[in-house]
């Protein structure tokens, strides 16, 4: 066996080993590296009352209700499997709206309402011209899941 073949095998074996370690580390980080928790995780007991966390989900259709003080909003965050009511006092980003994604920083209150200190809008992977955005949902390009 020539020296360069030895080096090639050594380099590939080492690379495979490091790549395997990387994949193991990434999958071990699965929960820790998640940027937010989903409603089903929150209701499954992954969030203690008062624990600082992020909740991410879709804003349920027709759920945004502005409270009497004019500043506080309430809405329901859902992932299709579970739903968590959210309360937030402040200004939301322009792209925040019903049937689109959002991420909220905050904590669960004892009554099961998530009290947010900050809300970010999450954009999905679809990009299209305005006239198509107004078309019925079933005519839009299918979103990759």
């Amino acid at each position, binding site marked *: 066996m020539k020296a360069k073949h030895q080096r090639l095998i050594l380099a590939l074996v080492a690379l495979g080993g490091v790549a395997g370690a990387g994949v193991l580390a990434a999958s071990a980080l699965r929960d820790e590296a998640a940027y937010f928790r989903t409603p089903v995780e929150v209701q499954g007991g992954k969030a203690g009352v008062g624990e600082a966390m992020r909740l991410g989900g879709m804003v349920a259709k027709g759920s945004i209700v502005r409270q009497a003080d004019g500043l506080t909003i309430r809405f329901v965050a859902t992932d299709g499997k579970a739903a968590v009511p959210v309360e937030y006092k402040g200004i939301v980003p322009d792209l925040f709206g019903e049937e689109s994604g959002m991420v909220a920083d905050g904590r669960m209150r004892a009554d099961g309402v998530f009290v947010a200190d900050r809300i970010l809008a*999450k*954009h999905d992977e679809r990009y299209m011209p305005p006239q198509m955005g107004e078309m019925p949902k079933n005519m839009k390009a299918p979103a990759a899941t």
Partner: protein
Amino acid sequence: MHAYANPTRFLAIAKPLTPWLLGVGLLLVLGGAWAGLAMVPGDYKQGETARILYVHVPSAWLGMGGWTSLAVAGLVQLVWRHPLSGIAARAIAVPGMLFTALCLATGSIWGRPTWGTWWEWDGRMTSMLVLLFLYAGFIALTSGDDGQRQGGSLSRGAAIYALVGAINIPIINRSVVWWNSLHQGPSITLRGSSIDGALLWPLGLTLFGFSLLFGAIVLMRMRRIIADNRVSARLRRLADEED
């Protein structure tokens, strides 16, 4: 392939190729920018801010593609010790880092109006920042080292560093799939694009154009390193003759 690893043969190809890559690349980038800014409509939801994708996506592609080629050059250096591989790796590092920085900057500028924040520590953004630091580390590791004075080859440490750093590339790519992230999932996959065709075509122009520009920059930097090597070799010879 071995034939092209010879610097003289490489120069015979690189020299006429450079202006073509540069010229066509510039034309495509300018055309794509014009189309993206003035011809296509804004996004149905984000409006005008979506147009930054015509720079953001090519930057991300080149930042990641740059490290992938750096790792291949590192492997070639380790195994075959081709004289050009180290030179190529040195030439790629700076534009790769530049495009990575451009990707982070445009993403941040887009994130403020879209998400409502300049920066969040989500999987995609963090792994991309790690890539920027990897480039910085590689440049620091290969600047003014012995290899630079001896023909541009990489030290074993630098070549291994380039290979190990490549693990970050699939992590960046998969970060939005593996982990909940603020960054949206992939728009363009093997199954198709969720960017509508009406908004997609200028991206093809800028993606290809920036790639050609990247190639031109790499060739120019490689030629400069080879020229530097020749100058220093000649100076060494002259100094020896005087002795």
